[in-house]
């Protein structure tokens, strides 16, 4: 994708449409479309904030920036009910296992947004003895939102990118694959 296209929303929409139209089974494809339409317009975030970025996330929820316009306002306190984690703030050594556990507790399909320079790379604290240098070593990241902290507009754009990503996914047989119970326990033994 050319760099300019990142600023060009129409090009992304077109790309999304192309991907959706090409090679999908008519029946499953239409069902996918319907379900992804629903999923991408009701992304539920986990209330997760460690520092400054979390306050901008609060602003995002309030009347001025109003993320309810996009269907993201149902912030859940429990990871079991959320669709994505917006990692807003620095992740330090002590927090890393907690973040991992929260990610593991999210129900599939799940997504992660690395919000702010601390979550992306460690930011201004990169050289510290007690800071994770980016969260991609801890959890897989879908969207990066740069800024320190990102403005609410940037966060809106970041979550919109996530919505687009969801729109091109194949819900059936793709993202929402079913694991057999026996296979699951083979990989995750109970001790």
């Amino acid at each position, binding site marked *: 994708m050319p760099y300019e296209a990142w600023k060009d929303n129409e090009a992304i929409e077109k790309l999304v449409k192309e991907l959706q139209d090409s090679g999908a089974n008519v029946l499953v494809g239409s069902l996918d479309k319907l379900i992804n339409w629903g999923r991408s317009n009701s992304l539920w975030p986990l209330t997760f904030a460690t*520092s*400054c970025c979390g306050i901008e996330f609060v*602003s995002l929820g309030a009347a001025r920036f109003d993320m309810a316009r996009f269907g993201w306002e149902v912030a859940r306190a429990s990871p079991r009910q959320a669709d994505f984690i917006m990692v807003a703030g620095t992740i330090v050594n002590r*927090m890393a296992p*907690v973040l991992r556990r929260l990610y593991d507790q999210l129900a599939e399909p799940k997504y992660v947004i690395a919000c702010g320079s601390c979550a992306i790379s460690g930011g*201004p604290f990169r050289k510290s*003895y*007690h800071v994770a240098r980016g969260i991609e070593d801890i959890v897989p990241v879908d969207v990066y939102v740069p800024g320190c902290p990102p403005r609410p507009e940037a966060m809106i754009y970041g979550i919109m990118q996530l919505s687009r990503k969801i729109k091109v996914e194949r819900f059936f047989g793709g993202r929402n694959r079913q694991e057999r119970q026996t296979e699951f326990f083979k990989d995750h033994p109970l001790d």
Partner: protein
Amino acid sequence: MAQLQEKIAKLFPQATFEEADVLTINIADAQLHDLAATLRDDKDLSFDYLMTIVGMDWQKELGCVYFLNSTTHGTTVSIKVTTADRDNPMLHSVSDLWAVAGIYEREVYDFFGIIFINNMDMRRLFLSVDWVGYPLRKDYDANPELNPVSIENERQLDTTDMWLEGPNGKIEKKTRPIFQKDDFVVNIGPQHPATHGVLRFRTAIDGETIKKIDVYMGYIHRGVEKLSEGLTYQQTLHFMDRLDYFSAHNYHHGLCMLYEKAAGIEVPKRAQYIRVIMDELSRIASHCLFIGTYCMDLGATTMLFYTLRVREQILDIMDKTCGARMTFNYDVIGGVMADLDPDFVKDVKELLAVVPKNIKEYNKIFTGNVIAKGRMNGIGVLSREDAISYAITGPSGRASGWACDVRKTDPYSIYPELNFEQVIMTEGDSMARFKCRVAEIQQSADIIAQIIDKIPEGEICAKVPKVLKLPVGHWYQVVEGCRGVFALYLESDGTTKPYRLKIAPPCLPLAGVVDHITEGQKIADLITIGGSLDYIVPDMDR
């Protein structure tokens, strides 16, 4: 100052004195406890407020600098204690004299490995039990392989160590459990919407009643103090935005004043006025967000939208002048970074016009509400003595009747010229802490109204070299943040980087008092009490 020195010299002939911006008393460890007790209990001295304990590594020696303040006389004094033993450094604890010392000493132990004899809880505070080394020592090995970022859960202990001194002077290490054997312990946090950040409470409860809370912090400890030692003075400023992100201007103001004091820089009048206006605007914005989130914790979600309306208006004003909504980096050494926006005065006046209406609205919607009254009145009462002993400053301290506003007790910048009174309440409960903040919004608005038309013309920044070099010495500075007294201590070795920059935030004592203030309360009130203290976790963890 001279009288004080004379009096102490008479009582402790071995003590030596250093004159700096704060009088420093050098004393041997053996006499530390006696000196501290005298300073606290003597009627003429009555240093009843322990501001901070600064751990120090002077390469040859390790040690501590204690900053004490007298709430009756308003004087400040510091005590310096050293130990030459680097392998097994030990000092005597003062945690029986000031309640807040317990948590300060744990912090020093965590960073420097200094053991405090007779402190009943000598665990690490921010770092895990398996952490290798003491990070703020000068010979710390920062190799990330020694302390890797792991996704495995960290090892935790249910016991704590203590080093007790017997009657014959022999020191013995003992271990005791944190909770009793049949305590029922509920874990709250670190990922909990009501802890306002990543703080964790291990709560022992008896039915619904809280027996004990073990506060577990360090989930956002970023090592700002160590990072500052590797940066030039100008480069350290931006960390102030990211500690208590609501007091960004106030903290910047404090650190700039510290460096200006050390370098002898005169700040232009215009810059001082701008700084104070920005400080007070931050205070309004901070208290507005406090009201919003606190009411949300108590179930009144709607309030957040009302209070953020004013906050957004302030952020717009800041945005126009500083170019950012949260991390402004606006105060620089010698003044401010950029001149005011042409619309600034007009925008601020518009804000001042709506503030009283908004406060009236908040009170109408929430303060008088029967449910709010029932949840806040008489909940989490903190007495004045305890507030001082636990070093609870800011609106939380003033709600307990302690006049601790640095803007009045130790005025800086143009505050002496301003006409305002401290907001002081006597109840000391959650309602008082809430009302105190609401009243301070009006107070800040009044302060701004006094000076908004009087901003003098002129320079916005003094001439300061691009790389600042400070003389050898040490300096101490306090400012009033939005949550209380923010203290800074700088030790310089004559280079372009700080040898040691100690940041003493107001939120660490706030976390330290949670156990005391919630004891015997109901677990549902933990949210009310914690919220009313209004701590910011990145501020306490740094």
